[in-house]
């Protein structure tokens, strides 16, 4: 296929267009100006994933900017998906960052509302939320396809200049586990209507609920309008499993997983085993186009998970 048939031409877009089961992971930039952290994580993930999400001040904690880290990662040979939240920027800043990211060679963006600052290390900060994630998706789509800014102005430097629009492969998040459950597919449809190309879900533990959600997604034909990557997070310990179950809003961890890890001689190995099984189950689910592995602080396990799930050799 010629490059110009693609929306963005990113590797992730091409993989998904070819119908291959996509694998993405997450790379949290450092909480300091430490380049080594980035180098190390890139070395762990390179060759094992199609693209990697670069988080944007995740959980409202200050880190190296997702665009700056994305550029560094790109130069190291890994494709970034820059995350962009609405918490820290207004519509001017968001659009200027998108232009800049595009010029730096970044082609994938994940549009998020962003965690509330009360979750993070600057709880007294003022938040922005000028726009929300659905409006952000629409803005990035309009920049790419209509070649206009949010205000309707054409994307060109002067009246006589050529239009030069940023062409991004647009991602969004979906949470099949938050409430109201019946509204979650409707909200996904609204993201599709706004122009989302791919979706990464909140981490899936409750496969049954996820399958119910996917059934509804398929009934609405949404899996054909955007590519859905199911999120997974390997559980490291019983403590982490309980924390995910009890403390993370919108995540459910069935008790049988908690019991399995509690009984295991090697809880970490059990966590990896469960994760691999989950990926295999998700891969069998109609409409799931890939998997998004969020191994928070456990990036070194991504190659093993990918390999054991039979996604790469």
């Amino acid at each position, binding site marked *: 296929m010629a490059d110009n048939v693609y929306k963005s031409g990113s590797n992730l877009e091409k993989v998904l267009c070819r119908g291959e089961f996509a694998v993405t992971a997450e790379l949290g930039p450092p909480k300091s100006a430490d380049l080594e952290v980035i180098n190390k994580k890139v070395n762990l993930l390179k060759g094992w994933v199609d693209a990697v999400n670069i988080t944007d001040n995740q959980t409202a904690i200050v880190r190296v900017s997702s665009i700056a880290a994305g550029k560094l990662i790109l130069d190291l040979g890994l494709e970034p998906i820059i995350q962009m939240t*609405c*918490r820290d920027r207004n*519509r001017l800043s968001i659009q200027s960052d998108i232009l800049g990211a595009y010029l730096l060679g970044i082609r994938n963006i994940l549009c998020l*509302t*962003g*965690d*509330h600052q*009360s*979750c993070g290390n600057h709880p007294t900060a003022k*938040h922005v*939320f*000028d*726009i*929300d*994630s*659905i*409006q952000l998706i*629409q803005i990035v789509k309009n920049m790419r396809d209509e070649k206009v800014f*949010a205000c309707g102005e054409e994307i060109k430097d002067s009246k006589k200049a050529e239009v030069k629009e940023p062409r991004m492969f647009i991602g969004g*998040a979906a*949470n099949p586990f*938050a*409430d*109201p459950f019946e*509204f979650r597919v*409707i*909200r996904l*449809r*609204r993201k599709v*209507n*706004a122009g989302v190309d791919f979706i990464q879900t*909140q981490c899936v533990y409750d496969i049954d609920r996820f399958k119910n959600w996917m059934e509804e997604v398929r009934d609405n034909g949404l899996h054909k309008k955007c590519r859905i990557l199911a999120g997974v997070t390997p559980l490291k310990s019983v403590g982490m499993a309980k924390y995910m179950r009890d403390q993370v*809003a*919108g995540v459910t961890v069935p008790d049988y997983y908690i019991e399995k890890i509690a009984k295991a001689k090697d809880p970490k190995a059990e966590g990896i085993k469960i994760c691999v099984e989950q990926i295999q189950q998700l891969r069998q689910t109609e409409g799931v186009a890939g998997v998004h592995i969020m191994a928070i602080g456990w990036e070194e396990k991504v190659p093993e998970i990918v390999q054991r799930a039979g996604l790469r050799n």
Partner: protein
Amino acid sequence: MIVAEQKPIEEIKGYLAGHKRILVLGCGTCVTVCLAGGEREVATLASILRLSSDSEVIENTIERQCDAEFFDAIKDQAASCDAILSMACGVGVQMVAKIFPDKPIYPALNTMFCGTNDGAGQWSENCLACGDCKLGIFGGVCPVTRCSKSLLNGPCGGSVDGKCEVDPENIECGWQLIYDRLKTLGRLDVLLENAAPRDWSRTHDGGPRRLSREDVAGL
């Protein structure tokens, strides 16, 4: 109504230190209803101040501190004092400062929000006075105020069992409320459309707001 609460007493005493004769001035409207700065609260606070300092403390309450016409009755009293402690909301405090340009004026309350009384000693925020009311499309529940992120296309992933992740014990998910209301009304179709970004210029982001109405001004 505007809901307010009294400041910590030490902060109030800090403001008043060094003043000889203080007028504690209550307001008979919102802060009376929310039991923060009416006649009764004025009496209590004035007594506490008398007990804890040598200053002379006098007290009075006018109908509304946000309206200049109610200040005539206290002009002489105010003139005899070297400081005024206003127990009104921030609007009233600023009006007192405007009416008495040569008097030090201090707030006794923290102005909290526009809200409802939810039962004895309970109030909650319902309106941000955004200047562009969307309650007609959101089933009578305000997403700008009742969602912690003011999302127009919510709910975010932090909505669980009708609660907001910012404080699941105390904050309801505004979007769950919107969803439930519209479901009851059989109007979930409203939520199929994506809401466009808001015009925040009608809110404080457009600068301090003014309202002029020729129909009233001409009367």
